[in-house]
Each structure stands twice: as C-alpha cells, then as structure tokens.
C-alpha cells in the first residue's frame, strides 16, 4: 500500500491533467490523510480534541467487514420497518468496523472557506483486558473483504496496529472486574485454606515452616519495638532467609519484602500473619512492569493497619482504572463526538450509527424506537446527506437525477474538489471552498485519491454536506462563529432524519422515534405497486426447488380464486412471500396446509396445493414469523435452513395461533365451510 497509493494518485493526477488540459488545472496536492494507528493514537486524539471543539460539523464514515450475514438478510422491499431495524441490528452485531473516518470541518470566516481535517483511524477489536471472557468473534463477508482489498485496504496495518476499544458496558465490567480482582485474590486464598476438602492432612513440613516463619516475624517485630531507629537485623537467620526477606520501607512503615517463596509458602505466611499478628499486614502490590511484590508491613495499631490496607486497595483501583482507560482506546473519539454535541454528518448512515452504538455504547436494543431514543441521547444532532439530496427538489435538479451514491454526489456537487478543476458552469459559481489540513500540510485542492477509505469518504461526505447547505440557502459568509449549524432554520427540518432502509425509503426520526416521517415534504419516489399489506402476507419455504413464483401463484389461485394472490416475491431461492388480497386467506391457507399434511388420502394428492407441498418439507407461516426468524441470532445462508434452525420457536407460536384461530373458526363456521367446499370442487 505504501508504494501503491502515491503511484496510483500520481497516475490519476496525470491522466486528469491530460484529459482536462483545456480547462484551467491546478496541480492537486496528493499528500495522504492523517492515518491513525495505536502507535500515534495518543497525540492524534489530543489534536482531534482541538479540531472537534472548534468544528462546525464532523463528517464520519465507516468501513466494515461485511453488510449482510446471509443473502436474505439484505434489505428487501417486503421488509416492514421493524424488520428493517432487525436486519440492521443483525449486521451491526455480527460484523466488525475496521476503519473509522472522522473529518471535522470548521468555517474560517476571515478566509471564507472551510478547513477540513480528515482522519483515518484503523481499528481492530483486540481483547486487551478481560481475557477470561469468551473469545471475541466477528463475521467477514467474503465479497466485502474482497471489495476492501480492491481498494488497497491494508489488513496488516489494521490487525497489527489497529486501535482497540471497549464499549461503555465493557468498560464498567472491566473496572468492576479489575477492582474486585485484588480482593478476590486474597479472599480466594483465604477461603481455600479454610476449605476442609482442600486442606489435606496438615503436613509436617507445613507445620514446621509455619512455626519458623512465626518465629522470624515475632523476632523482627520485637526487634522493631526494641530499637525504633530501624537498624535491625534478622538475628540467627541463615543467609538463605536473608535473601528471601529484605527490609524495606513501605508507605513510611518498616516492611519485609518477600521473595523466592512458592505460592503455597506465601499462602502459609499469609495465614500466619492473619492468625498471630495484629499489627502486621500482608499486602500485595503491583510494582513496575507488572511484577507483583508481597510485603509484610509493620503497623502501629489496628487502625493504622486498616488505613494501610485501604491505601493499598485504592492504589490497586487506580492502577486498574489507568489500565482500563488505555483499553477504552478508540472509544475516546466517540465520547469526544458525543460530549461536544456537534452536528454529525454521514451518508446513508443508519447502519453506521448502529455500528457505533453496538461497538462503543452498549448492546443494541430490540426495537428501533428504543434504539433511536438512546442514540438521540448520545448524538443529539445527526444529518444524513443522502436524505438531504433526496429531500429537496432544487438539489434533485442540480443532481440531474443522477445517483445519490456518495462518490457521484461528490463529483456532481463539488467538481472543483473532485476533479481538481475550476468549473465555468455558472451554477457552480457558489461553490463552497474547502481547504484540507493534515498536520502541517495544507491544500485548497486536495485529493488523496483513495476512494473507499473511511477518512476520505468522511471528507467527501462533509464536502457534499457543505455544498448542499449552500444550495439550501445557508449563507456561510454571514455565518457567525457562535452559531450552531444544527439550529439553522433552513437545516433544522432535515436534522435527525435517517433512512431506515434505502430500498423501500423507510425514514426514521431520531428525535421522535417516528417511522415513515414522509410528511415533511419528502416525496416518496418509488411508488410501490401493489401496496404492501403485511397482515395479508404468508411466508412459504422449503417447497420443491423447481417451483417458480408463477407456479406457486397458480397453485394457490386454484384454491383461493384467480384474484386471491396479489403478488409473489422471492426472498431467496428457497422462500417466497405470498400477498393475498384478503387478510383471512393467510390463516385459511395455513390451516388448509396443515389439514392436507395430516391426511394421506387420495384427495390430498389430487389437491391443487399438492404440487406446492410435494417433498413434505414445505413450511408456511405468517409475517410475524418472518420477523421472529429475522430476530434470531443465527444466520444460515438459505432462508429455509434458517427457518428450520429457528424452528422450535415458531412451531410453538403456530400452535398458539392455531388454537386462537380454531376458536375464531367456530364463531364464523358458516363462512369457513364455504371456503372448504370451494377446495373440493375447484
């Protein structure tokens, strides 16, 4: 990568220069953006704190190890908003973030341009503490990894040098764990000694050793009492024990440092001290370079001893805190963005936000509403550029109906940055200028040339946002440094609206938790035809693989009438959604299927549905079951396998709903009978 990037960038610049030779070309600067790994994280974080504090908005972008854990987990047209959220949740929980782009933008009113500081953080979820927890695992989607490789992503840097992190939940857990560790350790040893099963017949050797240590400590303590000037000797001891017991001072108190004892011997010593010496304390301290030191400390009184023990414990806690703080790692950046309450800008960033939440805040809640309200507390102002671009008719025209992918939006809205040329187009007279600063390098015409690198993508997102604001009529020139961009009246109605799913244009409002907030003048471009009614949908899977949508429609239409099936939609090759024109057909279909499967008579073989049920593996359920299957943590490649794996749960539910149906059935007996006769004669 080291060699590739500059070469690529250079050749790009060259070809650009050649192709654009007619327009006025400025040589675009190609210095790399700020790459941050664990080796330069501390200083980079300190600097970022300054930039974020001064920024008007911060653009972000993430590179993940994958998007969907199974093909059917991709967002589909037939996904209700709650299912959309479950799919996003699954993705954020299973995949890892490898690169995190952060780019603060600040309006320089004297120079009339934005200054951007693109940062590219390599992150890798190493387990630095809490090694006792189950191994940390994440999923990689082969195509996503291959995609990153295509854009020269450096996996070696990421795995060797990526910054690790702890979520808030993990941090609390780790602190508790580490501060308890000290007490537990002492306690555990103590309890082991009392344990009758574990204390084999007290060995002679132990008794002798205990006696000897008791004598030594008594002697030493008595010696201290006799001449309090500290000049004392361990009289009558062999050289051996002089090496093992070294006299030192610990927190202004005389102490013996124990070394060269086995852990069993140390346990016995601890026991002796506790049993026989009121004024001696056994303490364990962490010296430099993690080597542990055990001391026997002489205290003046019982109170003094308590005091000492407390001091030692506090020190342990402090050390644990320092260790945990270091392990928090990249989350400091997230905490910074959250505490500064800056406007966060992303491009189609609902998934990004879900990743941020699950990695750095805590486990994702089970519903979108809970999620959104928690997110709102951490990040009160989020704006999505994809949303903005589709929200405004003026912008849509400006985009000339081209795609709203990040790179095409960037090329369209910010040609002066994207292509490095001064446009002669009158429409672009109002281009917002952006100057990039990386360490001491500055350029108003910067292009790192590294698309799909999180830092660069964040930069592009920010540029698109700045330009969009200007098209929305926000005048940066009269912009006061004290003004909060998120409160700008022209922008306010777009704040905190995100696409829950781009494929069916479901919008969610982070402030209110409302879904489908179409009322704000957001035109729903893609008219769904026919309209999707989730309660009219039955889910069928495990049918013979030769059956196509057309065959299934035919089968069902024969039973429920030619217009009964509104639409059929393939989830994957093993499953379909069937939308009926009436809600009751769903339950009737499920009951009919059950009945046919129970009876083996010739009628069931001749029944029009027999083709669908052939093979005996065909399963069917209502839309709620689809939601349940989506919420399952497992991810089989084929939907039919997934449904079978989740199996037991939906089966139980089906029995319940069937019982409910049967009671309902009895009520409307006449109606049901009608349908039944229809089966027989069609």
């Amino acid at each position, binding site marked *: 990568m080291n060699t590739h990037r500059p070469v690529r960038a250079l050749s790009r610049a060259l070809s650009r220069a050649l192709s654009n030779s007619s327009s006025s070309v400025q040589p675009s600067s190609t210095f790399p953006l700020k790459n941050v*790994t664990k080796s330069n994280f501390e200083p980079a974080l300190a600097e970022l704190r300054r930039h974020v504090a001064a920024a008007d908005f911060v653009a972000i972008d993430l590179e993940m190890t994958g998007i969907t854990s199974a093909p059917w987990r991709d967002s589909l047209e037939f996904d209700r908003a709650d299912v959309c959220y479950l799919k996003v949740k699954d993705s954020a929980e299973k995949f890892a973030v490898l690169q995190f782009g952060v780019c603060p933008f600040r309006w320089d009113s004297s120079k009339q341009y934005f200054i951007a500081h693109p940062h590219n953080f390599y992150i890798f979820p190493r387990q630095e503490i809490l090694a006792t927890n189950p191994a940390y695992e994440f*999923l990689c*989607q*082969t*195509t996503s990894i291959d995609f990153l490789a295509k854009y020269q992503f450096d996996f070696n840097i990421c*795995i060797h040098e990526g910054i690790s992190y702890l979520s808030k939940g993990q941090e609390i857990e780790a602190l508790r764990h580490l501060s308890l560790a000290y007490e537990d350790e002492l306690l555990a040893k103590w309890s082991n000694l009392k344990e*009758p099963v574990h204390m084999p017949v007290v060995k002679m050797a132990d008794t002798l050793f205990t006696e000897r240590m008791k004598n030594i400590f008594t002697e030493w303590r008595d010696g201290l009492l006799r001449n309090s000037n500290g000049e004392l000797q361990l009289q009558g001891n062999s050289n051996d024990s002089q090496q093992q017991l070294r006299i030192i001072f610990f927190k202004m108190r005389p102490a013996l440092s124990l070394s060269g004892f086995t852990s069993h011997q140390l346990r016995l010593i601890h026991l002796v001290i506790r049993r026989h010496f009121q004024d001696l304390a056994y303490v364990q301290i962490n010296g430099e370079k993690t080597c542990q030191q055990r001391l026997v400390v002489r205290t003046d009184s019982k109170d003094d001893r308590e005091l000492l023990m407390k001091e030692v414990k506090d020190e342990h806690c402090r050390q644990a805190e320092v260790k945990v703080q270091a392990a928090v790692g990249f989350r400091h950046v997230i905490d910074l963005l959250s505490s500064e309450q800056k406007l966060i800008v992303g491009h189609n960033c609902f998934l990004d936000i879900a990743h941020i939440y699950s990695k750095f805040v805590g486990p994702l809640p089970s519903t979108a509403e809970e999620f959104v309200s928690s997110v709102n507390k951490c990040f009160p102002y989020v704006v999505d550029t994809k949303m903005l671009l589709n929200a405004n008719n003026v912008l849509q025209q400006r985009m000339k109906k081209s795609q709203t992918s990040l790179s095409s939006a960037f090329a369209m809205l910010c040609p002066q940055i994207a292509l490095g040329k001064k446009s002669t187009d009158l429409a672009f007279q109002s281009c917002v200028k952006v100057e990039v600063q990386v360490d001491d390098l500055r350029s108003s015409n910067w292009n790192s040339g590294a698309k799909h690198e999180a830092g660069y993508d964040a930069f592009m997102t920010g540029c698109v946002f700045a330009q969009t604001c200007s098209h929305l009529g926000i005048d940066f020139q009269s912009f006061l440094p004290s003004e909060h961009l998120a409160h700008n009246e022209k922008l306010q109605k777009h704040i905190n609206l995100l696409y829950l799913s781009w494929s069916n244009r479901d919008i969610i409002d982070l402030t209110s938790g409302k879904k489908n907030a179409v009322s704000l003048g957001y035109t729903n471009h893609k008219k769904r035809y026919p309209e999707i009614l989730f309660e009219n949908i039955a889910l069928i899977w495990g049918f013979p693989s030769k059956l196509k949508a057309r065959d299934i429609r035919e089968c069902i239409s024969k039973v429920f009438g030619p217009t009964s099936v509104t639409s059929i939609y393939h989830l994957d090759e093993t499953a379909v959604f069937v939308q009926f024109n009436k809600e009751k057909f769903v339950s009737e279909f499920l009951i009919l299927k059950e009945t046919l499967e129970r009876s083996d008579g010739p009628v069931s073989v001749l029944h029009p549905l027999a083709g669908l049920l052939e093979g005996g593996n065909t399963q069917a359920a209502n839309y709620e079951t689809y939601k349940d299957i989506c919420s399952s943590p497992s991810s089989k490649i084929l939907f039919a396998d997934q449904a079978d794996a989740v199996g037991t749960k939906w089966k*139980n539910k089906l029995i319940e709903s069937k019982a409910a149906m049967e009671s309902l059935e009895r009520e409307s007996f006449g109606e049901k009978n009608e349908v039944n006769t229809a089966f027989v004669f069609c």
Partner: protein
Amino acid sequence: MASLPPLIRRRFLSTSTNVPKKWAVKEVTKLNFKESLEEFKDHLAGSNFVAVSLQKTGSFSAAWHRPQPFDTADTSYCKAKYAAERFQLLQFAACPFTLRASKLTPHPYNFVLFPRDELKLGMPSYSFSVQTSHLTSMAQEGFDFNACIYNGISYLSRAQESAAKVRIGNPSPSTYIMNSSSTHTVADTVFLERIKSRVKHWKNACRSSKKDDALLSSLRKLVLGSELYGSRPCMNIDVCSERQIQLALEMLREFSDELVPLIIPAKGGGTQAVRVVLTSSKEDKDSFERELQNLEEEQNQRVRGFREVIDLISASQKPVVSHNALNDFTFIHSKFLSPLPTNVDEFMDSLHLVFPHLLDVNHMMKNIGPLRKVTNIHAAISYLNNHYFAPIDMENLPQENEEGTVHRHNVVKMCYLFAKLCSILKIPDNAMTSNNALLAPAPEEYTNISNPYPDSPQESINDDIRIWTKNMKKVSCNHLVFLWGFRSGMTAGMLKSLLHKSHDVFSEEFDVRLVDKSCAIVVFWRPGLSETFLDFVSSEEICGSLREIVSEGLRASSYEAYKRVCRLGLWEANLAESLDRALEDPDCLVEANLAANCKEIYWSSDSTINFDNL
C-alpha cells in the same frame, strides 16, 4: 502510511529466502500457483508421506466447546463440525516427505488461501467468522494478511464444483453410449427425420457457401440457424427431453464423421440443445476435440483452484500425516469435499473414500506416556530430544527465533516429530511405503481419528470416553450426571462437600469435576446411583439440604442432555445455558427414551487432581 514502524515493515517484507537451507518453504499464492502445482505434483510422486497443517481464522469460542476427555466420538465430532463450518482456512501447508532409514527429506509448500468469489456465484463461502485472538497471534507469527486477501488462491469444493458447472453452463462434449436395443416410436422417427434433413441442408449449404454473396449467406444463416463456433460453422438442435438428446446424438454419429456434437446445458440443470459443429476433415475433427478437452481442463482448473492440491493428495493414496486430525479433516471435508454429514460414522466413511490412510501425530504421542498431555509440537520435539536417542537426519530444524516465519515451519516440524515418533515407536518406515493398499498393522493403530483420546488402540473404535488425561477408570456414560445452576464461584471441592452431606447416594465414592464456571460433572462409581439421584432430584419427596440447593436453582441431567446439546448445536458460551435450552425443547423427552445405548468412558482415579485448574 509513512508512520509504519520499521519493525513491522521489515516483518512484511521478510521472505523465506533468507533461510539458507536445502529445503525452503515455498509460498504459493494465485500468482505462482500454476507452476508450483506442477512442482508439487512431482514432489508428491517422489515421496512416501504427505504432512498437512492448517491455519484457521478461529477454533473454539468457549472453553467447553473444545473437545473434552468426557466427549464421545460423536460429541467431539459435533464440536469439530461446528468450528469447521464457521471458520475459514487462510493457509494450507502441505509437505510431501520421504523417510528412509531415519533420513527425512521434506518438500514444504504453504498454499495461501482466500475464498474469493472468482466465478461470481456466491461460492465458496458467503461469509466466515474470525476470532480476534487468532488473528492477533497469527499477526505475531508474521502472517501476511494482505498477501492472503489480495492474492490468496480460491477454490471450490467437489460439491460446489458440480453445482457451479450447471450454473456456468459451458458446452461440453457429449458422452454418448450407443444403445442398440432401443426401438424408435413414431414420434422418434418424425423427430429424427426432421433434424436429419435440417442438418443435411445446413451441411451442404456450409460446404457450398464459399461462392455465395454476403446477402445470400446471411439469409441462409437466418433460415438454417447456422452460426460460428470459433472459426467453425455450427448449428443448434433444440431438444426437450433426454430421449431426444440420445436420438440426436445417434443420428449425428451415423450421419457423418465430420460433425462434433456438443451438449448445451440449460440454466438450472438439464439440457437445452445439442450444438453440432462442422469440421473440415478427420484431422480437423481430432484437433477440435483436443481443443475442447484443453478448454475443459483449463475451465476445471479455474473452478477448482486450490482444490487441485487436495485432489492430487487424494489420488496419490499416500498416507496423510496431521497433528490434530479430527479438527483438520473436518475443515478439509467441509471446504474441499462437501458439507459435513450429521454424524461421525458417515463422516469417517466419506473421508475414508478420499483419504484412505490418515496418521495422527497426536495419537502417536499418546503412546509415550509423558506426552499424553502435550499438544504443542515444539514442546513434544524437545521432550523427545531430551529423553530418547532417535537421531533423524535432516538439514537443520527451523528455529523458533527466526522472527516472522514461525508459522511457515510448522509443517516441517511436524514431519520431524513424526519421523522421531516412528523411530521411537519402532514403526518400520517401509511399512507404509509399499504400494499395498492395506497398511502394515503397526501404524494402523494410529489412524483412527474419530476418538480424540483413545486409551489404547484396540478400544479406540468403541465410544469410550474418560474424564482426565491421567490414570483412568472405565465409566459408563450412564454414571455421569451434569449439574448446573449452582452459585457462581463454586469450586469442584466446594460442590463436592456440599453434595456429600445432601443425600445418601453421595455417601459412597463419587467425583466432581467442573466443565466450565457454570457446570459440573458428577461421576458415581456404583451403577444405578446416578438414576437414583436424578429421580430423587425430580421427585416430590426431595428433602433436606438437597431440597435447599435445588430451590436455589441447581439442575441436574443425564449424559443424554449433553449429547443433545452437541447434536442440536446449542453452542452457548456457558454449558449451563446450553443444557437449559436442550431441556426446553419439547422433543427432548421422546428422544431420551430412544437413546438406550450406553457408552463407556474413562474416569481418572487420581485424587490429587487440582480441581481449580480445570
């Protein structure tokens, strides 16, 4: 990336060339795969064993997921299967080697793999799991992830290859076998006559077309449906049944020597048409058929990718030496052969067809008492070096201190260990070199991989398990009881003393062992006590201190529940959680009655075991 520390940069750039040895590990990526494959083929042909060692993206997610001494062949297979299906292989080291009169000649290859979707068919693997701890330690050993992901060799399993062939839909030469006994129906005759006249017209037209003007020839093309296949003219005969294909092929064979029929597969299986290619002469026909063959070969190589190596090893029928056979071969089976079958017997049968001779170094080590517990190759080698005189003649053994290349040499070390073990265990090295399909009796006892801890070779076929790796007593699975739901932080000793006072069954000798923090095993030495205990725990009359413990949440179940956990794949982080889920299942009771076959396991009688280190 200017900030890259020099140490790391050096690690990335280091190659095996700085090791001055007769043998050097050959790194193979997709860039040099083709020529390396030829070389490997030669080395394989000239050697009498092949050692394999795999680099995976993960192993076991929780402590109890790894094979335990109390596992039966079936449960340990379930565990290995679970890992093999989720994790990915990033490197496959294969080392053909010869061992003659304690002279070892290894030819190590490291094939770097990545499951890239080369054919855009969503194969070989949609996604895979990764353990960060695994990647971190691979990184420390100097594994180059960029080389792996950018240039790793892709592959398809045998099962995936057949699926892919259908979906790619390349024309293939016909494999028609003359069936003289078939009689033609009227419909057949009509079909035959129709296509015969079409082919005749088309052939004549092709022969005479040289003089035609452009307009005429293009008209003719339209009318006759004539096209070009490469530089040769061809036409398609649409067919709608297997029968029609046979008829068409039969007719073409009788019709002319210059026609070559090709089968055009339909999307989603079956045949769409028969394509007839007209060659200009007998020689041209031969050369065209050769062309087709080469094309197919090339296509196959592209599809199989790295699996070519597996096929070569399999075809060579050489004994395959590995260090942890069950784990490695579940991976190999699932990535390169076909999806793993549900039980261990089917797996062994299926594997045996592909690799008839498997040798597990780990098993061989079990025959040397002190090595029973050693799993590290390096430690085993140094133990053998210190305790046995068994010189192996090989150019210097790779050293641990060669920074950044440790992972490359594992397979060579394994060969070395194998050679040493052969020498110490007095396994004649010609025993396996003979081309006889049956192995000599001596090494056969090391070939069983189904049981991770066979006590002795004769018994390894049974489903025996044992609890500790030291002295064992045979114990039936029926005598085991799983306990969970006790207070966290309990040690086995605490649990034992608690139980001791709680019920009469515990007045006799019994043992307790923690499986993980959440779950323990109790072994009753007298038959029938486990049932008594289980009945008592679930009965109304439960009383005394046991009642108290049970009311605090203690649960108990037989070994069946554990088997169920493994079979259903309820791989929670804590075994207690998994057992709870297994008992939740409504089918549970039904199955418990069916499973009457009891298995025997081994239980250690060694009382000085440290309960806390389990």
